[in-house]
């Protein structure tokens, strides 16, 4: 897809938000034997300094090239283990590519494992502060967002109770409200978030749509073809760590469904 710029002032806006070129991502496979100092004490040293050959390297992603332009919404398709989640974590900067180029212009934020990292002994309010600080927000910013979070999560007075007294629904509501309190430039989603009862699910859906609207670009990995069709403009099909198809979303979905 090409975005045709009108006038020179659009030059900056035309710069792609995500640029990936021949990216490869490999991880060393860790064999249990490798780690036992007892069976092979020298492996500790040789592994670090000398022979790399003894470690098996697995290629998770290979030869990945694509760009995401402002306004583009990319749906990532593929079977389990195709490398979708890893790709998102690379875009979020959690993993580093082994080879190739990866440029992300703007803030990229992923909503991964949103319930992890909540402190059970802390109150809801304290958890908002902790997670907010971890997301690099200032105390003032967090303070301003608190009423909104409390309202959205419908926790009301329970916000002052420790998390260990919360029901699983309350926890999910809080985790969701905290995780979605900032709008990033580039939104990375590993499956659509949905939680709670019927009514709250509707609220979540609204909030997610709003997040998608306000972000400049979206990368969504999902098995839900219907969702991808309704949200995304472009599609990318991964298979065994390689891109097997990229193009507009209808063609990509067709390709993906055919290969199933």
């Amino acid at each position, binding site marked *: 897809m090409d975005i045709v710029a009108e006038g020179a002032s659009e030059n900056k806006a035309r710069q792609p938000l995500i640029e990936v070129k021949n990216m490869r991502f490999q991880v*060393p496979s860790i064999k249990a034997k490798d*780690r036992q100092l007892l069976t092979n004490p020298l492996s500790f040293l040789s592994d670090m300094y000398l022979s790399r050959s003894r470690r098996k390297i697995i290629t998770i992603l290979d030869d990945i090239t694509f760009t995401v332009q402002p306004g583009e919404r990319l749906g990532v398709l593929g079977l389990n283990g195709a490398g979708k989640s890893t790709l998102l974590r690379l875009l*979020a900067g959690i*993993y580093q590519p082994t080879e190739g180029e990866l440029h992300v212009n703007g803030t990229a934020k992923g909503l991964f494992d949103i319930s*992890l*990292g909540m402190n059970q002994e802390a109150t809801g309010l*304290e958890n908002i*502060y902790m997670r907010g*600080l971890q997301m690099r927000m200032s105390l003032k910013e967090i303070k301003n967002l608190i009423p909104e979070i409390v309202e959205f999560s419908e926790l009301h007075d329970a916000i002052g109770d420790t998390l260990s007294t919360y029901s699983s629904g309350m926890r999910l509501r809080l985790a969701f409200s905290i995780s979605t309190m900032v709008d990033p430039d580039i939104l990375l989603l590993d499956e659509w978030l949905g939680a709670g009862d019927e009514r709250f699910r509707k609220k979540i859906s609204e909030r997610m749509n709003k997040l998608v609207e306000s972000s400049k670009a979206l990368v969504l990995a999902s098995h839900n073809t219907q969702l991808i069709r309704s949200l995304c403009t472009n599609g990318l099909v991964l298979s065994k760590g390689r891109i097997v198809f990229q193009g507009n979303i209808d063609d990509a979905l067709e390709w993906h469904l055919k290969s199933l």
Partner: protein
Amino acid sequence: MNHITSLIFQTWLQFLVRYRRTFIGPLWIVVGPSLFVLTLGLLFSQISGAKAEVFIPHLTIGLVVWTLVSGFVNGSTTVFQRSRAQILQGGMNLLDVVFVDVTTTVFHFVHQIIIIGVVFLIFHIPVTVYALVSLIGLFLLFANGVWLAVLFGIIGARYRDLVEVTQAVMRIAFLVTPIIWMVGEQGRGGILGVFLVYYPFYHFLELIRAPLLNNPIQPLSWIVVLSITFSGVFLARYYFKRYSGQVALWI
């Protein structure tokens, strides 16, 4: 700077929350060492030759500093595993995690300074301007806590053996460091002297303890501590550059 303050605040919040369900909160940190000092101090000043007013301050400072040192060493090997969620969500980078962990250990230490203060009051130990030198030693120890967490954190994430090694070593190290015993007047000439020359923990402890007790610091202690600090920072930087990208895969 703003980022640092926010990290410190975050540490403080976590620190308080940890003691949420207790009555006296973080003061529990003081209880353990106080009992230790009281019991061992009274016992050892009876059975050994040293006088209580000499031995107990020696023991107290030694114990409190040792808690800091072993907190750094034992914490360093699992620092990244313990913050797995934060790292994999992408919110905190590895150095943030290290900073929070080291600051938590320092918070513990700050509470235990109370014990030293109380002991100094009881035994009327004069504090001179020279005592401020121990702040330099303390600062150097903090710096070592940082590089240690980076280096051991990376190696410990890859090789889980490291945590077992440090725990085993630190237990013995406590006994062989002059904390619950004193280096005799002529001790440096004997077999112990040779050992202490090559024993880094002793030098770290001396930089902090000697000024407080108005004892001179051996130039050797400065040399050892400074060279360990610089080479440690250098080594940690190298490992961080080379392996930090892979830590997220190992934890």
